[in-house]
C-alpha cells in the first residue's frame, strides 16, 4: 500500500485529462492505496465550480469526485490563486473581494500551493493529469 498525491491541471469539461485522473484515483483506492489529496491547479480548479451543469444524461465528474472523496476520506484541495483568476471563489474569497456570489462549496477546500508541496513531500508518488 502506498500513498499517492494526484494533481489535476485540466478542466472538468473540454479535456479528457480530469476524467482520467478520476479513474486513476478510483483504481488506486479500490486497490487498497491511500490518496493524500487531490490537488487542483491551473485549469483543474474548474472541476470545483459548483455551477458546472452537465446535462442529466451525461457523466457528472464533479459529483463523482465528491462521492469518491467522501467514500475514501481524502481531501479535494484547490489552489486559491489559480481559482481566483479563473472565477472560482468560496464564500470567504467572495467576502474578501466584496462580491455577493461564490461558486465553490465544501467539501472542496481552498488551499495554497504549499499544500501541493507538503503533499508531494509526504506522499510516495505524485501523478499529474
Amino acid at each position, binding site marked *: 500500500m502506498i500513498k499517492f498525491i494526484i*494533481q489535476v491541471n485540466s478542466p472538468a469539461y473540454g479535456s479528457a485529462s480530469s476524467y482520467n485522473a478520476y479513474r486513476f484515483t478510483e483504481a488506486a483506492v479500490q486497490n487498497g492505496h491511500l490518496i493524500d489529496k487531490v490537488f487542483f491547479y491551473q485549469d483543474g480548479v474548474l472541476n470545483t465550480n459548483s455551477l458546472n451543469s452537465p446535462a442529466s444524461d451525461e457523466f457528472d465528474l464533479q459529483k463523482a469526485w465528491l462521492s469518491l472523496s467522501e467514500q475514501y476520506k481524502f481531501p479535494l484541495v484547490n489552489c486559491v490563486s489559480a481559482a481566483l483568476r479563473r472565477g472560482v471563489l468560496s464564500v470567504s474569497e467572495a467576502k474578501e473581494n466584496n462580491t455577493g456570489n461564490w461558486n465553490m462549496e465544501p467539501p472542496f477546500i481552498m488551499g495554497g*500551493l504549499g499544500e501541493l508541496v507538503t503533499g508531494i513531500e509526504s506522499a510516495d508518488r505524485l501523478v499529474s493529469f
Partner: protein
Amino acid sequence: MKKLCIVFSQGPHGNAKGREALDLALLSASFEQEVSLVFTDEGILNLLKHQSPETVGAKDYIATFGALPLYDVETILVCEAAMEELELAEHDIKLEVQFSSSQAIAEHFNHVDEVLVF
C-alpha cells in the same frame, strides 16, 4: 525535503503555464524543497531578454526569474537541442544557467524525486 524538478516546455504569454510553473518553483523553494528547473522546447523563450509582457496585457512574471538565486534555486538547466532548434545563442538568455545536453537532462530526471511539466 524532496528534489523537485519543474520543466518549462511552453513559451510565455500565450498561456499561464510559465507563470504558474514559476509560482510553484518559488513556493517549493520557500518550503525548503530542493528545486531545479529545466527549460526545453519553446519554454526556453521564458528566459529571453528584452520582453514586454504588458504589451499583450500579461503580467511581467519574467522579471521574477531574477529572484531565483534569492530562493537558493541554483540548478537551472537549458536544453541545448531546444536552443539549436530556435537558433538562440547563450548571450540571448538572461539568467545564469547550465546549457545541457539531452543526455544530461535525462540523467537529471532520474536523479530527482518528482518532475512536474508545465
